[in-house]
């Protein structure tokens, strides 16, 4: 099912006067997602599919956003990287690059961020500050300091343990006062807990590098839809996706049914693929013509 999103009327295009203008700007109508006029400034997430579902069309700036995901390596970083790049690019444009700005802080990351990969993604590594922290209170303190200082544009933090409601509120307040964006990564266990964050989402990795986003809470309309994104663009993942589609199609043709199965990989298959690497390039070429979306 899909949501009909009424685009908010931008005041520039349609300029009513007096009271009408006031209501245009300040009144939030139930049933609207909220356009650029009602939402605070946002950061382009880099994913059109995600932007459509977020109030204002992007990650809220100067706010706390909760991202709930279990496990590491399902595309959670790829989801945030375009936004961080956009923040850096915006700073470059504003001539702020002369002396800083666009800094991002990573607190309590589950593993070491790998410099070559970030460089390849286009990140300016001089703007990335990494803070090792294992204690929740240290992480929260560091995040609060970084957010409130106004020196950093974004803070990404990973906390596995429970966080007191007051601490979350403090984070939110610090983010608002410093104008920095805070992405808080937590286990999905905490989805049931209440949170002051205006945007909460649950991530789930899918086959072929796809990422399913389940919005739990957002400004404006209640969320009722899951979003699928192709967040990671590893060539091998694309190949894998093509393979799976090809497999499915051949199965469908052979069986004449439309089910989506084939999750278990038999040992022989796997060995074949491991040691028959030379044969791999041939398969995608053939599958490209067969796949329906190319």
């Amino acid at each position, binding site marked *: 099912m899909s949501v009909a999103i009424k685009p908010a009327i931008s005041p520039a295009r349609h300029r009513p006067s007096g009271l009408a203008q006031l209501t245009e700007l300040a009144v939030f109508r139930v049933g609207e997602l909220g356009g650029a006029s009602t939402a605070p400034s946002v950061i382009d997430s880099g994913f059109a599919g995600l932007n459509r579902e977020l109030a204002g069309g992007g990650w809220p700036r100067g706010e706390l956003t909760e991202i709930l995901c279990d496990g590491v390596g399902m595309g959670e970083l790829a989801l945030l990287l375009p936004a961080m790049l956009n923040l850096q690019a915006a700073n470059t444009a504003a001539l702020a690059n002369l002396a800083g700005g666009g800094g991002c802080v990573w607190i309590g990351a589950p*593993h070491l961020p790998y410099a070559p*990969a970030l460089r390849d993604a286009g990140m300016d590594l001089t703007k990335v500050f990494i803070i090792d922290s294992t204690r929740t209170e240290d992480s929260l303190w560091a995040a609060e300091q970084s957010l409130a200082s106004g020196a950093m544009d974004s803070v990404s933090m990973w906390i596995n343990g429970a966080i007191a409601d007051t601490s979350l509120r403090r984070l939110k307040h610090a983010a608002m006062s410093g104008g920095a964006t805070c992405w808080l990564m937590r286990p999905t266990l905490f989805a049931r807990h209440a949170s002051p964050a205006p945007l909460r989402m649950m991530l789930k990795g899918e086959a072929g590098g796809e990422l399913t986003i389940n919005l739990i809470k957002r400004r404006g309309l209640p969320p009722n839809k899951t979003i699928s994104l192709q967040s990671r663009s590893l060539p091998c993942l694309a190949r894998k996706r093509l393979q799976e589609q090809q497999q499915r199609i051949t199965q469908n043709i052979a069986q004449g049914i439309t089910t989506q199965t084939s999750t278990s990989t038999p040992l022989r298959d796997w060995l074949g693929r491991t040691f028959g690497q030379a044969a791999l390039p041939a398969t995608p070429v053939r599958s490209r013509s067969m796949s329906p979306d190319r």
Partner: protein
Amino acid sequence: MLWIALHFPQLSIDCVMRGHGESLLSNLPLAIHAGPSQRPTLHALNTAAREAGLKPGMALAAARAICGTLTAIPRSVAKEEECLQRLAIQLAQYTPSVSVDAVSQSIVLEVASSMKLFGGIGALLGEVRRTVRSQGYQGLVGIAPTPLAAQLLARATQYHPATRMCRDATQLTERLADVPLALFGWSYDTLNTLATLGLTRIKDLMPMPRRGLQQRFGDSVLNDLDRARGLLGDPRLYISLPERFSSNREFVFEVHESERLMPVADGLFQEMEGFLRARGAATQTVVVTLKHARNAHTHITLGTREPARHAGHWLRLLREKFARAELAAPVVEMTLRVEQLRPYLAETHSLLRNAVSTRQDSAANLVDRLAARLGEKAVYQIEVESDHRPEFAWRKQTGAGLTQRPPARQRYSRTDSGQTRSSTKMPTSNRPAWILREPRALVGMNDIPQYHGALTLLAGPERIETGWWDGKPVARDYFVAQNPQHEVCWIYRDYRFGRKWYLHGLFA
């Protein structure tokens, strides 16, 4: 020439009191005693002691009889001189011409040349007074075109509060007329003879024949009079600033809580700031030493990314250190040392009033604060190194210079002129975004590596065999693999040493 003189009538008591905050000692009667050890007499008293009925000059034994709770500390002239010297160094931030007169317990500053910089004599005087007060001294101020006249006016404030400033040299004689001769510091005999002649003030001495005065009292009286009025030169020896900074505060009582140390530390840091301003310098490292009983010490080293001298910033760093650890033992003395001076780089103000310079400054400050509390090693940046071995293809950057690195040249062209990119196509990288601190050995079942389930190989192998020359050789085949949870892993098989599977990174 215009001189500001600062006279410290309460110097001996201030030297002791200023180590502690207002609250701790102000209610306790405290006296400084001097004189022969057989019969010490009171030299200086604090307000509480004076209210208890004690008077300077009283014998210590008599004072103890009157006030049982009196704390008496022997006077140390050397320490008083040292205090004056330190204050003078701090005042050198306002003018390079600072001179200490230890005999009359005063400091004179020549300010005619630096007055304009600080916004006039009024503003400058306010700054000087604030500095003196922040160090816990009570100073009397006199301003005059000659140093001696300024000193006389400062000391005369006790008798005539109205006349303490004279900026015009022509009015100097008139203004000095009422100053008592006793303030000159002449010998007792001279003053006594003058008093019996009925001469007690400068105006009484003026009409006297100079020849007669010279015959009776020698040159000193006439010379001092002439110096005060500017008729005779009065060269002063200016202080020279030391290369290093070191200052301490001794406590009369042991201090148990770190919170009690903060006002003292604030004073020390302000003293340091004054010194650094006078030197036109800043520093990156400050060592705070806490001395405990029985000669035990605690050293606390504070460091910043960029040379800094603002007292408030250093105090915040110290506060973070104290927030992490309790005092090991009660503190009896606190010392602050600055070993290395760095040139001070003033903030560059932009013509366009954007937040650029202030932001950069606070980024460095933020990193300092974080590192002070979480440890130097916990806050770092990463850099790319050119090495084929994945674990050596990057390195950590900690410590100084963290926020001073030039921005890296962009490898990938962005959309021009700040337009943020919509519909991003992430540039591909064959390296994972997360790398494990140590490669993790994977359990293999039937030669299939397991990580949260059986792994399916997606791409590879990428063979990396290098490093034989520096003793850390690798011989690995890297694969991209996916597990049933759809986590994409970067694994390798050591094809030479044991043929085992390892997890090295995660594509996130």
